């Protein structure tokens, strides 16, 4: 089968970085769509938290109008948090992650591709579902628009920060607690600014500064998180 004589190949004769990233992204998407029920997990959890509150706390309009946006943000945060463990876990268990670490391309770019796939599969569907749930908890129209915008900027930040935690806790059997403890302190500013933006909008205050700050969070997370995750993955791999 191997027609060439066996010899050490120069590095240039390989697959480009873009091609490798695309392959990683597409494989994750393909696996997810092969198991469509898994795609529903974060969505279902999101809907569940949002609907249990009217049942368990109070179904009154005044309560829901006041608390609704906050409930949606907390539900989205918890939903992303619970999906993080899957980001690398299956790949770790079946050996795909070993092969990923051993690819010649820079690992942080491959991790970025995986994180992007994770966001497209968890964060983005939440954003798309938000208008429906927003109406359900009696949010006014302009609040819903701002709410969607803050979640659109905020959920990728949650995925990116979360990837660091997921990579660090990968070798551990009981990753859940540590993952939450590592990640939540970094999530709280995103939550506070996210809900703060919606609150400001509902009071008619300008939200430009808020949104700019959230954009800065996103930029920072995009540039730093993949490096941190890649280093953490190598450490976790070495200890396993």
């Amino acid at each position, binding site marked *: *089968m*191997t027609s*060439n*004589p*066996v*010899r*050490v*190949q*120069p*590095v240039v*004769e*390989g*697959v480009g970085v873009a*091609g*490798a990233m695309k*392959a*990683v992204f*597409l*494989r994750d998407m*393909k*696996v997810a769509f*092969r*198991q469509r029920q898994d795609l529903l997990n974060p969505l279902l959890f999101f809907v569940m938290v949002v609907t249990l509150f009217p049942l368990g706390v109070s179904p009154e309009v005044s309560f829901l109008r006041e608390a609704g946006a906050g409930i949606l943000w907390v539900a989205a945060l918890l939903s992303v948090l619970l999906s993080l463990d899957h980001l690398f876990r*299956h790949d770790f*268990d*079946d*050996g*795909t992650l*070993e*092969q*990923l*670490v*051993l*690819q*010649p*391309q820079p690992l942080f770019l*491959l991790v970025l591709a995986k994180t992007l796939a994770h966001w497209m599969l968890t964060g983005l569907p939440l954003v798309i579902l938000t208008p429906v749930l927003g109406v359900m908890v009696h949010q006014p129209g302009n609040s819903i628009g701002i709410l969607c915008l803050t979640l659109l900027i905020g959920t990728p930040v949650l995925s990116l920060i979360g990837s660091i935690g997921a990579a660090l806790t990968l070798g551990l059997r009981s990753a859940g607690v540590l993952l939450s403890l590592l990640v939540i302190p970094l999530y709280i500013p995103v939550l506070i600014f996210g809900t703060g933006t919606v609150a400001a909008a509902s009071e008619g205050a300008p939200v430009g500064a808020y949104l700019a700050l959230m954009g800065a969070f996103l930029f920072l997370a995009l540039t730093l998180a993949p490096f941190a995750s890649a280093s953490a993955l*190598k*450490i976790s*791999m*070495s*200890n*396993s």
Partner: protein
Amino acid sequence: MSEPLLQAVNLQCERDERILFRDLSFSVLPGTVTRVEGANGSGKTTLLRILAGLNDAWSGDLYWCGEPRARQRESFLRNMLYLGHRPGIKPLLTPMENLRALMAGRRPVSDEVLSRALEGTGLAGYQNVPCRNLSAGQQRRVALARLLVADEPLWLLDEVFTAIDADGVRAIESLLQQRAAEGGAVVVTTHHDLTLPGMQRIVLGGGLTDDE
């Protein structure tokens, strides 16, 4: 062809505060098969993971084509193929999709070649069946199909005969032999009585633990 691909000098590895091996020095030359031997728990898997660069808990020196491996990361990864206990096969994808994804990060290979490689490991007709419907042995064969399209000169194979039936074992043995004849280098761990002409052996003493 006499420069070693991989050279280990005074390798030492501790695990759980016990020394698995120490002062381990050997060279992996092109055109050879090296078998890592030892009882259960002697550190065969650990040694292979150290050689592959997956485990950092060691001291000593490792050279790739004569230069320290740490400085040659990209060249080393481009030219080394590692197959571990866990074969890197996604149960939800088909053998074709798995093989395509595994090759995608290494070098472009046409679907036709991949399909023929799967046929070569006895998976003709199963190319597009999701791997979770295949048996453990058939899933290993998907991973082994990589060996039929690999151009990497160094292969590190951990327990490559696991769950493979007798015909499959013979096919792998002759593949390894042929590979060495073509100038490739193979390092294997196995419990099978693998004996090939000119085979090098690395025998590990009884240590405490091995990777799972």
